[in-house]
């Protein structure tokens, strides 16, 4: 399955990845190659096989509902680019 330029641009936007103009043909080619591999895998007959959510033959372990974390805000905010009044500051985003 081939993928077109328009779709590559849309995926890049969703993933917040900036692609240079000259990168686009190469990325388009790489992803098309991957999709070709997927196509090939899809030709395998999987009727009656349940989709697998995880390759490990194991299930999730649960933890008791207890608070064991301490407040380490100062340490975390010490390495943050910008913090004030206990808040992490980020470029303004309003939808």
């Amino acid at each position, binding site marked *: 399955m081939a993928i077109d330029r328009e779709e590559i641009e849309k995926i890049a936007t969703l993933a917040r990845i900036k692609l240079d103009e000259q990168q686009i043909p190469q990325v388009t080619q790489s992803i098309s190659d991957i999709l070709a591999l997927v196509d090939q895998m899809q030709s395998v007959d999987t009727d009656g096989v349940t989709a697998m959510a995880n390759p490990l033959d194991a299930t999730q372990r649960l933890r008791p509902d207890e608070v064991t*974390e301490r407040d380490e*805000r100062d340490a975390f905010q010490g390495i943050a680019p910008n913090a004030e009044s206990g808040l992490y500051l*980020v470029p303004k*985003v309003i*939808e």
Partner: protein
Amino acid sequence: MQWETVIGLEVHVQLATQSKIFSASSTQFGAEPNTQACALDLAMPGTLPVLNQQAVNYAIMLGLAINADINPLSVFERKNYFYPDLPKGYQTSQLEEPIVGPGVVNIQLPDGSHKAIRIHHAHLEEDAGKSLHEDFHGMSGIDLNRAGTPLIEIVSEPDMRSKEEAVAFAKKLHAIVTCLGISDGDMSQGSMRFDVNVSIRPKGEQTLGTRTETKNLNSFRFMEEAIVLEVERQIDLVEDGLKVKQETRLYDSDKKQSRSMRSKEEANDYRYFPCPDLLPVAIAQDHIESIRQSLPELPDAKQQRFIDSYGLSEADAAQLCDDRATADYFEIVAKETDDARLAANWIMGELSAKLNRESIAISHSPITASQLAKLLLRIKDNTISGKIAKQVFESMWQEGSDPDDIIEKQGLKQLSDSGAIETMVDEVLAQNPDMVDEYLAEQVEKKKKKKFNAIVGRVMQASKGKANPGQVNQILQQKLSR
């Protein structure tokens, strides 16, 4: 043209766990910003989520309460989107294999009729943090205390046809989760939030119209307002020959307006995939059964019991069972006064009016159930009249003190000494001969009754409301019929 409204709800309920869904940080509301956000909540590299057992149990309880199947193997997935209050770049949620399968919630409408609303599924997920957009020199402030708080999202089928049905459904879910004790249900703290999907179609049409989703409504009233507004907007569009666009909208409860937030085709591509950091969650049948055994009484059963054992009307029982705290409060007052009707009247009347006016939850009522019971007992033993009781209630609310102390201190004890009342009646009759004459001359039964009551009023006034109204009536009746 006649339009039909079609509504589906997505309800986010914060689960009342101590710690977060994937980390051992506290979920307590109101802490200093970011003091309850650990390395995992901040999405630091190298951290791994570990699922909270209690969040799973709460989800199972909800599933059982709505007659849903519990998925023996449910799967967490990553819902990818970018927003600063979601530092991982994805929300850990469920999609293909949610923990709770299809179920049903029965609602009762204001006209007394019943309707079953189907639940599509309910899934576990984590809450995001909070963005504060004011006052940071053009930057936004991020508080991640809420990030990772466990939520269960309950998704209904588009089975509701009016705002009344939507509100009844939302209230019923609130009653269920508070009865189960899986959420505190405190809407003012965001413990329950609604996304409303609304579409319209010509009456009789079978296919659904294009829907919009209004997000993040945090009260029943705002939800109702948003529905009214959206239905009007869509009808206007269609009647002007335009099309409803599928989009997400935000409702501004101050301005009573809504606006488009983003169009679906652009941003709604969340690229879900199974979360590689979490294994499938297996739930054994015997675990489900043991939870089933320990389920508390659910709102429908409670309502029926209130009707059967307290003799309440269906409407009263329904109102009292709206939330667990009110039902518990009622049961204490009813038991301590041995008068369910009186208890119900006061709780639904005086108390709830006062709580509403001051926006206080009944669980934080300044008058406890036992104190109210004590006050009502004073009405029953004729220490005070119902009218004076309202005055005492007011003082109890202000001062938080014992009703007996207030009655004593303010000298409000009801006057039941028939000699003293008789003296008062005589005085009033002597001072108001014209009223007496008018009463005696009146022929029309209804008017006569009114004039009689006016004289009773004067006597009550003279006694500063303390005379026993029954006795005043009786004595006055005797005097005037001579």
